[in-house]
């Protein structure tokens, strides 16, 4: 679906987008955020998903989703470890008064933030019209990605798997973004990447 050259370009584009995301997160929580270089994998379809990334697919996870609508259209699944989010709650302005609820809301906030930074960054750099977003929701919890995906019919799409890892103060926090691009907008993205590559 994407050529290696396009993927290399997308890797850098997402790297830059997440850099902006980390900067905004840092400003929001007034703490320095250390972001690892996001790693990008192309995923053809749901069959390919667990093969593409064994590590996350074997552990139980919390997965959220948020859709983006516009010329660049699709859904992002954000995959969190089961116990990664607790420490961030305080930094994000949550008073500790009810654990499960708080954790879930925090994870949704984080989803919103990461997805917003990532998708907006891609649109901006590719000179695509900005997408608008739906509210993030919890997709599934406590299952492995593998077992969940096998039991769910995902609409035909092309996906990019982005592994990101950031550290806030002493808390390391890792998650994966699975950017699923709907077939209707794949050409628009592909063309936009080509235009960017050709322009330099």
């Amino acid at each position: 679906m994407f050529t290696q050259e396009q993927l290399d370009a997308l890797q850098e584009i997402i790297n830059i987008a997440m850099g902006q995301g980390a900067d905004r997160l840092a400003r929001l929580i007034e703490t320095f955020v250390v972001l690892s270089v996001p790693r990008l994998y192309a995923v053809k379809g749901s069959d390919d998903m667990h093969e593409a990334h064994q590590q996350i697919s074997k552990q139980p996870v919390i997965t959220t989703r948020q859709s983006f609508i516009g010329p660049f259209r699709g859904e992002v699944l954000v995959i969190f470890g089961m116990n990664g989010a607790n420490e961030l709650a305080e930094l994000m302005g949550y008073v500790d008064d009810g654990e499960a609820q708080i954790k879930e809301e925090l994870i949704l906030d984080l989803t919103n933030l990461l997805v917003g930074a990532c998708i907006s960054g891609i649109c901006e750099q590719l000179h695509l019209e900005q997408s608008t977003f739906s509210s993030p929701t919890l997709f599934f919890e406590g299952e492995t990605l593998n077992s969940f995906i096998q039991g769910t019919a995902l609409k035909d799409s092309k996906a990019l798997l982005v592994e990101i890892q950031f550290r806030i103060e002493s808390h390391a926090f890792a998650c994966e973004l699975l950017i699923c691009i709907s077939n209707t907008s794949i050409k628009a993205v592909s063309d936009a990447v080509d235009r960017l590559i050709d322009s330099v």
Partner: protein
Amino acid sequence: MTMHIVIADDSSLSRKMVMKALPSNLKDVEITFARNGKEALDAYHCGKADVMFLDLTMPEMDGYTVLKSLKEIDANTIVIVISADIQPEAQQRVKALGAASFIGKPVTTDVLRQRIREIGLL
């Protein structure tokens, strides 16, 4: 006299974006691409680095290490750091290490030329 410019970045897109953003009226310059920190240092040792555009996160050797090494060898080398990490802390850190300037990615022609003017390169 020929001016040697090194553009060190592991992303080819970013290397090209920097090159494209360079002023078009530059004469007598030689541009070398480096894909990682080691290649950047090698280019310097071959005497091909008066000015270096340096990415921070690269394989083999990161930009911080390259910057430190360069500044130890020759404090006069002009290093302009270009990074996706645009938090103020990163900027302060590279400035403290002796970087002449900092440009947040994505690199645009306007910003790059402005920075070059600011440090009096042209």
